């Protein structure tokens, strides 16, 4: 059995984001990067399945990006993945979800994966499209926003979270792709000895140019913080005085009384 887990590295969400020169993404210098939270659930669930099946499945973690994505890949290896694939791409932020899915599908199509785990969405771009597109390109079924997962002999029982907290249960056959949501599991801390042992695990590096053939379908035209709201004015005093203050403001600062 072969399993693929797709992970993305995203900035720490407590960072201060500033638009870059082109105004279509944020300045990445000085930001701390982490594994996308939803992808941690994906890695954890894949590792749990491997453990449940007596360690038999081979777990591959894949990430696309510059050399810094080696960090989440090493974390995935330390958490229990067997090998990693680094699709080297210094311009990953300029690719749309369709292109990202195309890269993953181009890598995965001949590998015979029985299961593919991804996060429900990334914390930075948040499109929630990559999982769905990838399954479409590979011609396999997909279930999204998993909060429960069970696997038995080629059959997947997936519990999904719906609006308003309702749950849906979906049954499907592998090969399949699932996207993972908060509540599915509590990811383990990779232990320090396992982080050291991960150094010995295989990391395959592939050039993005060998995998990406698709053109982008969408284009980000602007990235900017929300417009700042002006601070409210609090007036104090007795009512007659307040009335005069309001009148003054309406006269001076608005066209209402002109």
């Amino acid at each position: 059995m072969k399993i693929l887990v797709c992970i993305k590295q995203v900035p720490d969400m407590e960072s201060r984001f500033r638009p870059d020169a082109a105004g279509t993404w944020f300045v990445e210098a000085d930001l701390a990067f982490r594994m996308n939270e939803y992808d941690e659930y994906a890695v954890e669930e894949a590792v749990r399945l491997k453990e449940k099946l007596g360690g038999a499945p081979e777990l591959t973690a894949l990430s696309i990006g510059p050399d810094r994505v080696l960090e989440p890949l090493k974390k995935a290896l330390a958490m229990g993945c067997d090998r990693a694939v680094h699709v080297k791409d210094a311009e990953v932020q300029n690719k749309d979800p369709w292109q990202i899915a195309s890269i993953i599908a181009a890598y995965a199509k001949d590998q015979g994966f029985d299961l593919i785990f991804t996060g429900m969405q990334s914390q930075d771009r948040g499109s929630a499209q990559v999982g769905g597109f990838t399954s479409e390109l590979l011609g396999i079924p997909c279930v999204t926003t998993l909060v429960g997962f069970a696997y038995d002999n080629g059959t997947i029982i997936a519990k999904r979270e719906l609006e308003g907290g309702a749950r849906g249960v979906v049954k499907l056959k592998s090969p399949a792709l699932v996207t993972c949501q908060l509540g599915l599991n509590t990811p383990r801390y990779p232990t320090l000895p396992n982080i050291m042992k991960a150094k010995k695990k295989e990391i395959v590096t592939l050039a993005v140019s060998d995998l990406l053939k698709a053109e982008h379908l969408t284009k980000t035209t602007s990235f900017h913080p929300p417009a700042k709201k002006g601070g409210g004015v609090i007036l104090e005093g007795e009512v007659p005085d307040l009335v005069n203050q309001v009148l003054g403001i309406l006269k001076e600062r608005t066209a209402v009384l002109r």
Partner: protein
Amino acid sequence: MIKDEATLNVMVDTISQFVKERLIPIEEQCSENDQIPHEIIDEMRELGLFGLSIPEEYDGLGLTLEEEINVVFELCQASPIFRSVIGTNVGIGALGIVIDGTPEQKKKYLPKLASGEIIGAFALTEPDAGSDAASLRTSALKDGDHYVLNGTKRFITNAPEASVFTVFARTDPSNKGASGVSAFLVDKGTAGLSLGKNEKKMGQWGGHVCDVIFEDCRVPADALIGLKEGVGFKTAMKVLDKSRTHISAVCVGAATRILDEALRYAMDRKQFNKPISDFQLIQAMLADSKAEIFAAKSMVLETARKYDLKKNISTESSCCKLFAAEMVNRVADRAVQILGGSGYIRDYAVERFYRDVRLFRLYEGTSQIQQLIIARNMVKDASRS
């Protein structure tokens, strides 16, 4: 020396997450109860924290000192008592064996120290031998194929939890100096070894310290570290060169947290219709603390790199310990000042840290002993040239 930056970053990130999610939320409770819950210590074991500095061949992580220090900066964002639990295994309680132990001694103790299955303690200080450690009076007299230990060791960190003690004792009663001292590995439960009561301390509640008493305590001759008499004091000094750099990193970590607490308070607290962080007198205190933390951090990293290149760091490690220990106390004092009356109240972490960090100017050599080491080394080096 950082062997693999990505791997180290994953480690530091893991510790940072563990500190935020598991340690900081319970640090106040640990202090109040004077006890770290067993499940937290188990989690620390599982994470591998006890084996940071123990070589990989003995099941430790074999981190370089620079790597270890980066982990310590992060771990010490939580109360110093958590570092104290692993501190003796990573530092003084294991280093004697790592540095001067025989292969058999290493094989017997290091894997268990690395996993945290056992705790090691370092028994050098005595009631009448603190700063003047070389004058220690605990005796170890040869009797056939055994040594018989007699004496009292004072303020021994983690002694109540320890399974093995690195004990410094005089094997040559006619030699009152450092070269009459040898180092032994004494197991808990050895007849004649007993513990005093837990000391009630000013701070670092949850970390334990007590006397270790030897009364005709017979240990086999192969408990002598390196099977060599008379080199124990040298072993102790080698251990301390490294561990002083480690403690300096602890000070940097703690100071970083304290300043963070003070900064957040200053930005939140309003007086005269403004956050107090807008006032220049508050800003001066914040800036001085920031600059001093940066200086100490740079010193510690530089010294660790030198140690990893196998160079002598006796002077540098004392410079680090002197500066970092004094620095963290100034940072804590300013933090109390920034918090004003609240800084004197138990509800605020700053009050606890203020008491906790006072110890750093005292143990593993007082600030004054660091000054003496630095100055003596300066004179020695100058007279050589």
